[in-house]
C-alpha cells in the first residue's frame, strides 16, 4: 500500500502538470483568484482554480510537491554524506580532538532546528541549493551520532579484535569491519531523517524561507492559500493532503 502511494505521489510530482492546460508560472489576468471547482474556474479551463495572480493552482500544486521532494532528497543525501564523515571522525578520534568534535555536535544538536535554519537561510540567501544545504547540515547530526555508535559497537566486536590480532592493518580493519556497520547505520538514520527534513522544509516554506520564486514548495503553497482560506478552502486542503500523504509514506511504523 505504501509503495503504491509513494509511486502515485512521484507520478503526480513528475507528470501531474500535464493533467491541466494551464500554466504554473504565467499569470492569467482574465481568471484571477478562482476557487477550485467554481463556475468561473471551469469556464476558464482551470478545474482546480487559480491563485491571486491567475496561475493554475493544480500545476502549482504538482510543482510544489516536486520542489519539496527535490529539496528533501538533496538534503537527505547531503546529511548522509556529512553524517558519515562526521560520525567516522567522532568514532575514531581520541583525546582532546574527539572531545572537541563531540562538543561541536552537541552544540549543533541542542540548537533549535527552525532557529538555526532561519539564521542560515537568511544569511546564505534563498535558493534551492542553500535550502538543501541548510537542511542537510542540520540533518547530519543524528546520522553522525548513529554512525559513531555503530563504530564504537563494531570496535567492541570480537571479529574486529581478532582481525587486529591477525595482523590486519588499520585500513583493512576499517574497510572490512567498520565500513559495513557504518553504512547500515547511515542508511537507517537517513531514512528516519526523511520525515523530519520534509517537515523542516515545509516549515521554512511556510515562513517564506524555502525555495524562492519562481520555484515553489508545499509549505510556500500553504502560505499562499492560507490568506484566502475562507474564499477557497480547497486551496488549503490540497497542499495539506499532499503533506499528510508524503509523511504517511515516509514515516516509520
Amino acid at each position, binding site marked *: 500500500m505504501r509503495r503504491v502511494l509513494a509511486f502515485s505521489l512521484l507520478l503526480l510530482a513528475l507528470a501531474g502538470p500535464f493533467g491541466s492546460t494551464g500554466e504554473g508560472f504565467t499569470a492569467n489576468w482574465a481568471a484571477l483568484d478562482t476557487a477550485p471547482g467554481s463556475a468561473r474556474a471551469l469556464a476558464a479551463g482551470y478545474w482546480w482554480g487559480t491563485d491571486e495572480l491567475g496561475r493554475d493552482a493544480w500545476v502549482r500544486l504538482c510543482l510544489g510537491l516536486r520542489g519539496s521532494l527535490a529539496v528533501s532528497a538533496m538534503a537527505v543525501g547531503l546529511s548522509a554524506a556529512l553524517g558519515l564523515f562526521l560520525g567516522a571522525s567522532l568514532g575514531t578520534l581520541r583525546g582532546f580532538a574527539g572531545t572537541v568534535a563531540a*562538543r*561541536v555536535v*552537541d*552544540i549543533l544538536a*541542542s*540548537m*533549535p532546528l*527552525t*532557529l538555526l535554519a*532561519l*539564521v*542560515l537561510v*537568511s*544569511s*546564505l540567501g534563498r535558493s534551492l541549493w542553500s535550502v538543501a544545504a541548510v537542511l542537510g547540515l542540520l540533518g547530519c547530526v543524528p546520522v553522525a551520532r548513529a554512525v559513531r555508535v555503530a563504530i564504537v559497537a563494531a570496535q567492541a566486536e570480537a571479529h574486529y579484535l581478532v582481525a587486529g590480532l591477525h595482523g590486519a592493518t588499520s585500513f583493512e580493519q576499517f574497510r572490512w569491519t567498520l565500513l559495513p556497520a557504518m553504512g547500515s547505520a547511515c542508511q537507517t538514520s537517513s531514512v528516519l531523517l526523511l520525515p523530519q527534513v520534509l*517537515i523542516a522544509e*515545509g*516549515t521554512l516554506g*511556510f*515562513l517564506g524561507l524555502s525555495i524562492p520564486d519562481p520555484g515553489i514548495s508545499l*509549505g510556500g503553497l*500553504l502560505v499562499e*492559500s*492560507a490568506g484566502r*482560506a*475562507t474564499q477557497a*478552502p480547497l486551496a*488549503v*486542503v490540497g*497542499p*495539506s493532503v499532499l*503533506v*499528510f500523504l508524503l*509523511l*504517511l509514506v515516509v*514515516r516509520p511504523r
Partner: protein
Amino acid sequence: MPAAPKRPNTLRAASQEGCRAGGRVVTEGDRKRVRAGIAADASGAPAGAVLPTVFRLLRSVGSLLAAALGAVGLCLFLMKAIAGGPFRSEQLSDPVLLANLDAAFGLATPWWQQWVQWCAGAVQGSLGTSFQHRGVEVTTLLASAWPVSVLLGAFALALGLALAVPSAVLVARARFGAAGRRSLASWWPTSLAFGAFCLEALMGALLCVPTYVSAPLMLVAAAGLTELPPVASAGDGVLRFTQAALVLAMPVAAVAFRWILLGLAEAASAPWWTAIRARRLSERRRWWRYALASVWPLLAGRLAPLAAELLLGSLAVELVFGLPGLGQLLGAAALHRDTPVLLGAVACSVVTVRGAQALADAWTVGWTALSLPTRNAGGLA
C-alpha cells in the same frame, strides 16, 4: 601491579535484596538503600560518597554553559560571515553613516571580540539592547515573550498527555488485557477492539500532520464553525490561544501515545506484572496504577526534547494565530538581523533544551529509585 578490587554492584545487590523482601512490606529503609545504590552506580563511587556526585553536577553545569556559549559564538560567527547587516536598507546607503552605525552598536569589531563582550555582559545580567526595538533591553523582550510561549507549551503538553494517556491505556487493555483474551462474540470486547483500532489510526494520522498544516486547517475549521474571520480580532484571545494549544497538542499526543503504548506493552510482559495479576486486583487498577507508573521514566526521556521545543514557542503556530510568543520574536530577530535578541534567545533555547533533558534524566533516576523496591518485592503498598 595488583588488580584493583572489584567494586560490588550495589544496584544489583539492592535489587536482589528487594526481591528477597518477598512477602514483607517494603520499608523506608529499603527505599533509601536502593536510592543510595543507584546513586553509587551512576557516579561510579561507593554508596554515600558526596564528592563524586557534586563533581558530576558541576561537570554537567559546565557542559551546559559551554554548549550555550558555543552556540552563541556560532551564531555570531554566522552573522558576521554573511554580507549585509541590521541597518542595511534602501533608505540607508551612505557608507560613512553605515560605518558609524556599526561602530556605535559594536558591530565593527571582530566576531570573537563581540562574543567576549556578550559573555561579559551576560555575567553581569545584561544581554544588550535590541536593534529592532530601539532602546529596549533583550531581557525585557524575552521576559515579555517567554510567558506566552511557556503557557502555550505547558497547556499543549497537558492537553496532549490528557489525550494520549487514556487512549494508550484503552488500546493496551484491548490488546493485552482481559478483553483482548475474550471472544469477540460479546459486545464489550468487540467495541473495545474497534475503539482501540480507531484510536490507533487517529494517533497514527496525527503523527503525519505537522503544525504548519494543522494551524491553517484549524483556522479554516474555526471560520466554518463560528463564522469568524480567519485572522482573529483583539477580543478573542482565549479562542486563539485554545486553537493554538490544540494544534500544538496534536503531535504531542501522537508521540506520547506511541511511547506510553510501548511502555504498557513492556509492563504487560514483565515478571512483576504476573505477580500483580495474582493479587486479583481490578483490571482498571492494574493498568492505571501499576502499569502506567512504569511508563513515566521512559516517557519523560522521550518527551523532554519535545517539551523543550514547546516551551521555546512554535514559530509557525504563533505566526498563524498572532500570539506574541518567543517563536515570533525569534523569527523576527533572525529575519531582521537583530543580533542581541537572537543571541539571547539562542542561549535561552540551549539552556532550556539541555535543562529539560537533565531534568528528565534526574526524574527518571528518582522515579526508578522510588518504584524499584515496590516492583521487585511485588509490594502493593
